[in-house]
């Protein structure tokens, strides 16, 4: 009898140790970057372009570039994603076509990010001649976050009670009007949450934009969607790995990492808080 409880105690300790290990390692990582990055932060760091061969100045062009790419990605992915989800949840019947589409979406979700980068390079940059640009990068990132948006939107649509649709149809309203006026508005909070999470993902990705959009340094800010941009994740990567002044730019690297973490985790946090707020408010 004693042995059984000893085993239980031992097991609970191991379980608690594992959660402590996660807290220590990932928490330690965040604290470390926060402490080292904080001293680099200043108003000028956020609003000035880099100076003196990147060793001084700020990261404003990279922040702006990431913002453009995020916006572009969501413009590409949101309409496609929501409409796909509407088909999957409202129109499709359980058959082989549906199964194929589902497998396709799952596989797309699993494609490595560097492969998206190559695809974007081959199709948008070279074949369609968009060059390395905001347009190519946004399209590539848009495709990357498409499965996330579809998944979240479909879940949101499915959580709208069937009775809502039946009530609407019983009033003689057509299927499309039911979807447009009843189902979509009720699913909007869930769709929004998914889109915000997609935004966060697009902001943090490096490999897909390496060959499709990102530049080490641009002398002036982009003026059209066919211009190259600097981007936060790529900025960290280049400063940390390339060039002869890696040690000298270390504070800028920490500062950029901190800004990127704050941006991505901030976006995700907004999504999570918004979701729990809407769940509590939900009356059905």
């Amino acid at each position, binding site marked *: 009898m004693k042995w*059984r*409880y000893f085993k*239980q105690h031992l097991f609970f300790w191991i*379980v*608690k140790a*594992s*959660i402590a290990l*996660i807290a220590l*390692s*990932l928490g330690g*990582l965040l604290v*470390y*970057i926060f402490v080292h990055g904080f001293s680099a932060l200043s108003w000028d760091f956020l609003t000035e372009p880099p100076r003196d061969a990147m060793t001084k100045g700020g990261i404003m062009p990279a922040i702006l570039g990431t913002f453009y790419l995020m916006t572009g990605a969501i413009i590409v992915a949101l309409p496609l994603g929501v*409409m*796909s989800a509407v*088909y999957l949840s409202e*129109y*499709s019947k359980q058959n082989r076509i549906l199964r194929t*589409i589902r497998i*396709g979406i799952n*596989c*797309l*979700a*699993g*494609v*490595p*990010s*560097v*492969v998206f*980068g*190559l695809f974007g390079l*081959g*199709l948008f940059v*070279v074949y369609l001649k968009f060059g390395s640009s905001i347009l190519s990068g946004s399209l590539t990132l848009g495709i990357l976050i*498409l499965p996330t948006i579809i998944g979240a939107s479909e879940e949101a649509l499915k959580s709208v009670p069937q009775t809502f649709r039946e009530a609407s149809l019983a009033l003689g309203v*057509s299927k*499309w009007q039911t979807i447009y006026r009843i189902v979509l508005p009720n699913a909007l909070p869930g769709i929004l949450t998914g889109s915000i*999470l997609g935004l*966060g*993902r697009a*902001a*943090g990705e*490096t*490999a897909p934009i*390496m*060959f499709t959009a990102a530049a080490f340094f641009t002398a002036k800010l982009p003026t059209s969607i066919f211009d190259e941009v600097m981007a936060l*994740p*790529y900025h*960290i*990567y280049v400063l*940390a*790995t390339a060039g002869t002044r890696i040690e000298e730019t270390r504070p800028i690297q920490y500062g950029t*990492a901190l800004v*990127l*973490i704050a941006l*991505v*985790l901030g976006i*995700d*946090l907004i999504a*999570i808080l918004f979701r729990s707020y809407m769940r509590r408010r939900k009356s059905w």
Partner: protein
Amino acid sequence: MTRTTKEKIIKAVFFVIAATSVIILGMIVISLFREAVPIFRVASIKDFIFGNEWYPTYDPPSFGIWPLIVGSLIVTLCSTVIAVPIGVLSAIYISELANPFLKEILKPIIELLAGLPSVVLGFFGMVVLAPWLQETFDLPTGLNIVNASLMLSLMAIPTISSISEDALYAVPQEFKEASYALGATKYETIVRVIVPAALSGISTAVILGMARAIGETMVVLMVAGGAAAIPDSLFDSVRPMPASIAAEMGETPFGSNHYHALFGIAVVLFFLTLAFNLVADYIANKYKQTGSATL
């Protein structure tokens, strides 16, 4: 236009949009193959995959990606060995042991950590973990398999933990009650009833975590060291496939053999991750947890 025609048109439009994902996937496969095929006129498929020498810029060049495949598999395997126990145990803690307050906090935190940009993990491995490893173990370089595996496992743990937690949470309450009624301890209930009932979900979590690790680029690009050779020890540098593609694509002339070889690596990588995802999909569908109907 009658109402039914209009409805039919709308449905057709939505179908076409829903099919874009499949079309894009097809386009990815086609564009990868189109650019990869020329390399197989230079090197046979067998030499390409099982060749031991990756010297794409030498004269004459040698395009054997076996060391890169081995590099990818070894960092994936090591990171899985680290991430699976920690991920699953933490999921058990959150779902079965934590009080409701802690649970409310831990769940979103794990979810947040899953979104940590990989370039940040790579950066941390490079500037903090690498010097520490080098000094502690007296190594020529801290950029090696151990470093890459540790950073990859940090990336995979939140994924594994959060999907496993969903699976554990879905185990019906009656199962636990029945187990307690038979006099089982909480430990026995967890290990013999709850975990087995959630096993398909946990397996899916593990495979998806592995797929994420094998396809991850920035971490291995920054901390694996980049040596294209079969490693002898865990402290050797390797050059996993995504790292090779990302590092060399920027420097290789467009349309060269080297360029086509990198697309060849992407094809191999694509099918490897595809296999992982199809297996995960198969397990999730075949052993679906549906309420109290199945165990």
